[in-house]
């Protein structure tokens, strides 16, 4: 635009996108600008000049005039008819001055080149997304400092629509970029006074509300003609380089639950076993008790029965019992009987070991070891 011819480029020395001048706004911006208009006029002149010499070469001049008028009408019609897309409204200009009101979607006509038209996508919901990983933006657009000097990795979207096409077109420049920088600045401001933990977890709703409020106020101050529908925090995570440490916390929580479950398992097992063992001990004791009592009863009954008979014939029975016992005892064992006085004066040789086994007993308590006695 005019500025470029004198200034030599806009002021975007930083190599950032197009300036507010020099290029028509992008996206849903105006479709034609005065510069286009001038170019078209020039083109028309050129065409006319080219056409005249052809007319000089003595053709039917009436035909030439008809052709000229026809071409002019064609150009007027071609540039005059325009269509407003269903999501847009049009604003008509008379010699660059905007006419009040908006043109609704549909096919319309302006008396070009006196009148021109620009369309604004005022019925569309626009989405500005900030902090997308794939956006190719440098990382620090996503990383935001919190009030406790932690860093969160944010991604959020702003949904907005144009409520006043006149304000939108005539008050602000680089509209979409403006929304983007205001939104980022507002988000950083709100995040900057919130704790990292809160931003990441419970505070998202509050952050969204505060940011929306802040953006709206700022845009209203600029008379931007923009109304925000919503601000949505899509992502509020710890930055990638510490993500592992944050996941470690999750893993630790899992571990904690696992430890406790394992302990419960152990406890259940241990208590079950102990209960069983306790029951076993009790039953065994009861069994013992039952057994010894029964045995005692049996033995005593037996004794009493024998005693009853014994009482009837004490001596005989006593003798019999003794002899029977001795019979049993001696019947099964080896015996050595030594006559009193036999081998007196000499020490009888008694090879006890040779008598198989070392067990030597002497009933009656009397030592019967040879003649040493008496």
């Amino acid at each position, binding site marked *: 635009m005019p500025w470029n011819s004198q200034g030599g480029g*806009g*002021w975007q020395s930083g190599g950032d996108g197009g300036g507010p001048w020099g290029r028509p706004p992008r996206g849903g911006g105006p479709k034609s600008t005065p510069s286009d208009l001038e170019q078209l006029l020039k083109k028309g002149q050129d065409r006319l000049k080219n056409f005249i010499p052809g007319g000089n070469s003595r053709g039917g001049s009436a035909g030439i005039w008809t052709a000229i008028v026809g071409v002019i009408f064609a150009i007027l019609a071609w540039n005059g008819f325009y269509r407003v897309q269903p999501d847009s409204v049009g604003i008509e200009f008379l010699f660059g001055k905007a006419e009040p009101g908006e043109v609704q979607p549909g096919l319309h006509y302006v008396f070009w080149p006196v009148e021109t038209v620009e369309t604004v996508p005022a019925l569309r919901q626009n989405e500005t997304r900030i902090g997308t990983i794939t956006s190719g933006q440098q990382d*620090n657009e996503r990383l935001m400092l919190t009030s406790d000097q932690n860093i969160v990795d944010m991604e959020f979207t702003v949904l907005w629509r144009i409520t006043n096409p006149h304000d939108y077109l005539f008050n602000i420049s680089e509209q979409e970029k403006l929304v983007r920088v205001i939104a980022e600045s507002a988000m*950083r401001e709100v995040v900057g006074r919130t704790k990292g933990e809160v931003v990441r977890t419970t505070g998202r709703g509050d952050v969204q509300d505060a940011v929306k409020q802040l953006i709206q106020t700022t845009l209203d101050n600029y008379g931007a003609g923009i109304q925000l529908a919503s601000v949505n925090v899509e992502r509020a995570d710890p930055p990638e380089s510490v993500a592992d440490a944050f996941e470690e916390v999750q*893993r630790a929580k899992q571990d904690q639950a696992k430890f406790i479950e394992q302990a419960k398992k152990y406890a*259940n097992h*241990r*208590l079950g076993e102990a209960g069983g063992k306790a029951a076993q001990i009790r039953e065994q004791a009861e069994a013992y008790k039952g057994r010894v009592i029964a045995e005692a009863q049996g033995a*005593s009954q037996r004794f009493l029965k024998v005693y009853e008979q014994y009482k009837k014939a004490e001596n005989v029975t006593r003798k019999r019992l003794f002899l029977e016992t001795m019979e049993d005892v001696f019947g099964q064992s080896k015996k050595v009987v030594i006559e009193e006085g036999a081998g007196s004066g000499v020490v009888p040789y008694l090879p006890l070991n040779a008598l198989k086994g070392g067990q030597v*007993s002497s009933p009656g308590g009397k030592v019967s070891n040879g003649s040493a006695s008496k």
Partner: protein
Amino acid sequence: MKTWLSSLVLTLVAVMVIGAYSATFIVDQREKALVVRFGKIQRDVDEPGLHFKMPFIDQVVRIDKRLLFFESKDKSVQVVDGRRYLVDTITMLRIADARRFRETVEANLSLARRRLETRLEAALRANYGKRTFDAALSEEREQMMREIGDELRPSARKIGIEIVDVRIRRTDLLPDVLQSTYDRMSAERLAEAEQIRAVGTKQSLTIKAQADRKAVILESEANRDGQIARGDGDAKRSSIFADAYNKSPEFFAFMRSLQAYRKALKGDDTTFVLRPDSEFFNYFGSSSVIPQK
């Protein structure tokens, strides 16, 4: 003749069209214009629409009326405790005085921007330099933006620019500080993780120990009850025997002895060395076969 005439008319028309075009200019709704003749500003035009000028001599300088902004990235500032940060700002402005704008900076926005940025950097440094980082980051941010805007305003006015406001966008840590911040965040999380695990271990050990205690108590109680039961049994046994044997302690001793002999001297590996005059051999000698009276 006629063709000659018609080409003359055509030429005249063309000249008139070109002249008319050069004598008019259109000011867009978004613009103001200055009419400049030989480098001198003749007049300024605020109203959009069709305007006239001297053909071929007057030039038109168009100036944007809209809100304009520029970003200033990564300006290094130092806060009160000496730590350094990178700051991004956005300066919102309008060209308020087109004449002055043309006179001082040749209506050149990049030139104007360079002038403003020098001033802006100074204002940023001054404002951050008297605050702590926490204050700059959060509670005094708005006030800072206001103050920076105020400091910028007079020098902007001199070049015909009205500063609408200056917004601080980013306040970033320097790369090495960023790394140490990451390290600290990691360390904090790892500590938290360990704490969680420690709680888990503690609870786990507690549960196990409680289970062990209950198990030991269960078994011990069972043992106690068992011993009591066995004692009951033994006591009962004793009393049963005592009741029976008390009828004749002498016979009991006799019977029990016999039983003990039988049991103790069982087996064929026992060797008895006996005297023939023991009671068992009462009749073993010949003399006493016939009972003596």
